[in-house]
């Protein structure tokens, strides 16, 4: 079974980037270069782009650190189901 991080409530993102930093911490670095999660700011709204490589990390921790429940962790035998 694959575990996949999915953005389910992008409209609730407040741009704190804690998810970005959690993912980077798991790669033993601090910063934005090579980040598997990118937050794009647009005025008071945000969009979130996930690199599929994020699913190689502990994605439960990434889900947990989000203060607004933007993410969900799904389980599947196939990635395609969620595209």
């Amino acid at each position, binding site marked *: 079974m694959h575990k996949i991080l999915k953005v389910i409530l992008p409209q609730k993102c407040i741009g704190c980037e804690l998810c970005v930093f959690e993912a980077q911490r798991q790669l033993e*670095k601090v910063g934005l270069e090579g980040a598997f999660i*990118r937050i794009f700011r647009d005025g008071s709204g945000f969009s979130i*782009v996930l690199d599929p490589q994020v699913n190689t990390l502990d994605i439960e921790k990434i889900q947990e650190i989000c203060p607004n429940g933007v993410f969900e962790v799904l389980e599947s035998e196939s990635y395609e189901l969620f595209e």
Partner: protein
Amino acid sequence: MNYLSKKILYINLEDQKFDLKSFPELHPFVGGLPLGLKIGEMYVEKKPLIFTIGPLNGFFPFVSKTCVLELHKGLETFYLGGSLSSRMRFCAFDALVIEGKAENPLFIEIDPQGVSFYESHEAFENAGLPGRSSKIIFTEKVLLDGYFESPEGLLEMSLAKRFVAGIVINATVSYPIKNVLEYSKIFNDLLTRGSEIHKFAKVGSFPSCVGCPLGCEKSKVGEKEGNILAHSLVACDFMSDLYSDVGVVFSCLNILGYDYKHEDLERLPSVVADLLESLDKKI
């Protein structure tokens, strides 16, 4: 990352030149307000606009502000939220000093490798790296990240008198973590403690400063007053209780490799008082 000196990016608007230098002698000024005041004293005759961050910006939650000092006519200090401090950290400088006045409205793009100057809005539109930049744009008013403002329109006044129409900072530097388990423990503990401090405060769904999960409506307009230690680290003033705890601050500094001692932090109020007095005589 050099933990024993402060790196200043100096920009002269008149000749559109820049210089990036490390100053080991500025290390004792820690960051934020005292660092900005000391830089202000160094360059007082140039009447610069100064942006400073502290040693924890970009590394820990709630340390999310940028200290701004304007020395054009007297001294004005304020604090901005948004992503600016994290982008300065990941562009690898501790302070940005802007001197002079541009001939025409000028846009500035800052990378770790250098600074580019643009005179057309169109060129600046394409500047920046999506998801990794902090952008200040002067249209009807000055907005950081399209949302955050300075208190009392102070940044508008500073940029207008210098003919600066926009600044973008590109964050392309990452730092390795030596002790990731301990670092993560401290990070998560601070997140929990900070969120508990604000448990009964009004938090919500407003755009947040980077590293703050609270989404509070007060982040939109920056701050003017506050605790000296918090403003030396350039933490959010609402987290003064958290970042006034010297034990907390030292665990953060130590895990990153800074060699500050208790006395260095304890003397910050007197350092700030002395610098204010000195600057008052020179301005």
